[in-house]
């Protein structure tokens, strides 16, 4: 799952939902799709959780932390 970008993961979630809602899946595939969807959605939530705020500025090829100067 790692190689999926976040955007691809979200598109996959949509695809799985559509498949599950079409009635032509047998029970076993439905269960498998369900688990796949749930696992993927937890993965997405996890990515959102793990992202951490970084405001940086490029100073001679180096990313340093950037803070807004105080308003005068």
């Amino acid at each position: 799952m790692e190689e999926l970008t976040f955007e691809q993961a979200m598109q996959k979630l949509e695809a799985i939902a559509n498949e599950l809602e079409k009635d032509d899946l047998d029970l076993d595939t439905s269960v498998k799709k369900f688990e796949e969807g749930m696992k993927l959605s937890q993965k997405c939530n996890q990515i959102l959780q793990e992202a951490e705020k970084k405001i940086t500025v490029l100073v001679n090829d180096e990313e340093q932390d950037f803070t807004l100067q105080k308003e005068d």
Partner: protein
Amino acid sequence: MEIKPITVCELNKYIKNKVDSDEFLNNVYVKGEISNFKLHYTGHMYFTLKDESAIIKCIMFKGYTPNLTFMPKDGMKVLVLGTVSVFERDGVYQIYCKAMKQDGMGSLYEEYQKLKAKLEKEGLFDVSHKKKIPMFPGKIGVLTSSTGAVIRDIINVSTRRNPNVHILLLPVPVQGEGAAEKIAQGIRKMNEENLADVLIIGRGGGSLEDLWPFNEEIVAREIYNSKLPIISAVGHETDFTIADFVADLRAPTPSAAAELAVPNIEDVKYDIYMYQNRYKVALKRKVELMKLRYEKCMTRRVFKEPLQKINERAITLDMLVKSIKNSTINKLNEAKANANKAISKLDALSPLKTLLRGYSIVEKDGKVVKKVEDVNINDELKIRVSNGNINTKVVEKVN
């Protein structure tokens, strides 16, 4: 002899005549920047023209204003054609303008139009070339000055929408000499070193001159060739710079640019939550469907009385066995009857029967003798009678 003083009025009149009689001053062509421009209710225009070190009062009478092609505004650089004269009452000399056109600004604007047309013809503005802004960019690259409202707005809006956003600022000058080159380099650097997933380039409002770097061709080309999608947020709501036309998306303000680049985390979480719901509902429905089918099956008789089918089979089996038995017996009797018939028939025809009745069979060398000619004198014959044989010899033949 005492010098007689002249009055102020006489002095001013003298100066006015001096000025009015000067050839050059009758027709001056002056370059300068407009300031404290006032359009008087009478329709006359009062303003001063200045450069870095001096100013001069100007007036354009209502009669001349119709052939102006633009509305003069403070800060505008203009070229003025008029006559210098003196307003005696105030002892002030001023230019009585007869014509005015934009200076530089005008040519800058023309240059903008020319470049825009050229790039448009080349297809740099084509919508088909515009890249989609990724819905969930990992990193936002921002090219603007490190001071000022633009970066502040972008950071505020982005962090509000996604507290864990990652913004990389690449400071660039947004005005003046060399700015365009720096901006172009910045875009190229972001691309070459793949420093972000989407770029925002922008600056605050300003005159056409202030925004000029964003109208330069090298910036336009760099934007066009950028493989990273670019959102431009330059200048005012309405007037577009060339960068805005070439960019993949134009945002009216830096904050709007941040909103377009950074998805709102709560929305994303909500979407994910909705998907999970859809999965649960769909699976539940599927299971119920299956249960229904299962129950329907169970009600079928074949499950209710599983033996019923077997009994049926047993019955048919018995019947079959019975019919087999009967048919074999019949066949047997039939065969017996036939056999007896054949035997009795055989008996009837059997030569033994005739022998019993006194007949005999004469044979010569195993062949039955039927006619006199069949034998010769002295032949040995065998006569078969009912209970044995009699061997004889032929003595006489009588036809």
